[in-house]
């Protein structure tokens, strides 16, 4: 492919690391984790960071979880292979 790869970004907030009654739609004051995703033709990479709702800041050293799915082998995003990788380059790319 001679074109520059295109990327779509998305995000989702959570109140906690485990499912709660307000996990779907947390109020701003309750948001403690923010999951940022970067999606290309080839993969989706997501990192869940600590989030402070008082000043809208992320703690980049506070990674709660990660997800990596490769489109060709796993188009349905069912097999998270985050643990199989070192993430320095991907993390740098995301930010």
């Amino acid at each position, binding site marked *: 492919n001679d*074109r520059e*790869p*295109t*990327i*779509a*970004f*998305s*995000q*989702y*907030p*959570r109140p*906690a*690391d*485990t*499912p*709660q*009654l*307000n*996990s*779907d*739609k*947390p*109020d*701003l004051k309750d*948001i403690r*984790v*923010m*999951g940022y*995703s970067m*999606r*290309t*033709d080839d993969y*989706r990479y*997501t990192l*869940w960071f600590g989030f402070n709702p008082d000043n*809208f800041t992320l703690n980049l050293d506070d990674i*709660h*979880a*990660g*997800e990596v799915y490769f489109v060709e082998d796993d188009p*349905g*995003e*069912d*097999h*998270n*292979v*985050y*643990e199989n990788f070192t993430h320095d380059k991907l993390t740098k790319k995301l930010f």
Partner: protein
Amino acid sequence: DREPQDGMNVLFIVVDDLRSALGCYGDALVKSPNIDQLASQSVVFQNAYAQQAVCAPSRVSFLTGRRPDTTRLYDFNSYWRVHAGNYSTLPQYFKENGYVTMSVGKVFHPGISSNHNDDYPYSWSIPPFHPSSEKYENTKTCRGKDGKLHANLVCPVDVSKVPEGTLPDIQSTEEGIRLLNLMKAKEKKFFLAVGYHKPHIPLRFPQEFLKLYPWENITLAPDPQVPKKLPSVAYNPWMDIREREDVKALNISFPYGPVPKHFQRRIRQSYFASISYLDAQVGRLLSALDDAGLSDNTIVVFTADHGWSLGEHGEWAKYSNFGVALRVPLMFYVPGLTTFFPYLGQRLFPYIDPFSHVSSPAPQEKPQEMVELVSLFSTLSELAGLRVPQTCPETSFHIALCTEGESIVQYFDTTKEEEDDDEDDYVDK
């Protein structure tokens, strides 16, 4: 000799919770002949994604051209103009450039996130229209097996027997048609946004649309289990469907379920039927565009605020970063650009009755680029011949007009080769 953008109107159709389950996206089960017909005249983006899979943040994002971190709206409880920055919106930009801008149905998410007035009068020339029957959406209007009325998730209805004898999207279509005819008479450039409510839950639709989806054709999601290595923070427990009466009665365990298989199939069947009901409304609206003689000078955009999980990963909602929750249909019909200008009297969008139509849509295959809804602002500005707002700097809370999404018109030319092949046919006509 006309340039595509000369004096173009805009018809902006946005659907609530519609994943790309449409014939034109290769879905063999779903009957969407009218949207497929629009797609056949449009550039259809195969990989379009929302910025956050929940209504208010997604809509405020694409209507302001800023990401949620800039609108600072992640929930439903603040108005960006006072909470983040006094950002211009897409319709406001058109209004300030001489367009009559109008909102029908759910365009902004209602409530405080749009200042309880759909951002009127900043964004709209006239007060936004909301269908009167919307107030019954979450009331007990679904006939149960016990013969009583319930507030169910799965809710096929006899339209003649519901309150007011109509449904919100039917009313929105009627208002959209009325406004198209009005604008035709006034001969003013317009930006008409029509926001449809379905297939958002409850899955409340005219019961005849169930006939399009025989029970034996309804399957489960290909991956209905919660993935083993999914971090718990990534999972959403789909609370809103648990609150419906029919789902409550199933006593599904929190947070991981699962929903009983027979009910999974019922949800899927009703979601698909809701899409076909929506398709019929879109068909009526586009047919009216033809009738008003506006098809040759109106850009039509069709998209959704985000997708919806239909049982994939054990989820039944949006509220996640999964592709099924974020991927949306996105297509642009631009007369003279995505297709030739219609010749005199040509009907581009005749209404197609889904009950008599044998569906065999040709799935579109390009463009394949990953694109984002945050690009809608700059893309529509470019298509309409307006100046494209400048790209926002890294911090832009103090800047009223800029965009965080680049125009995706640059990807439109991937269809040109095919158009050239059709040129001889066009000349013959």
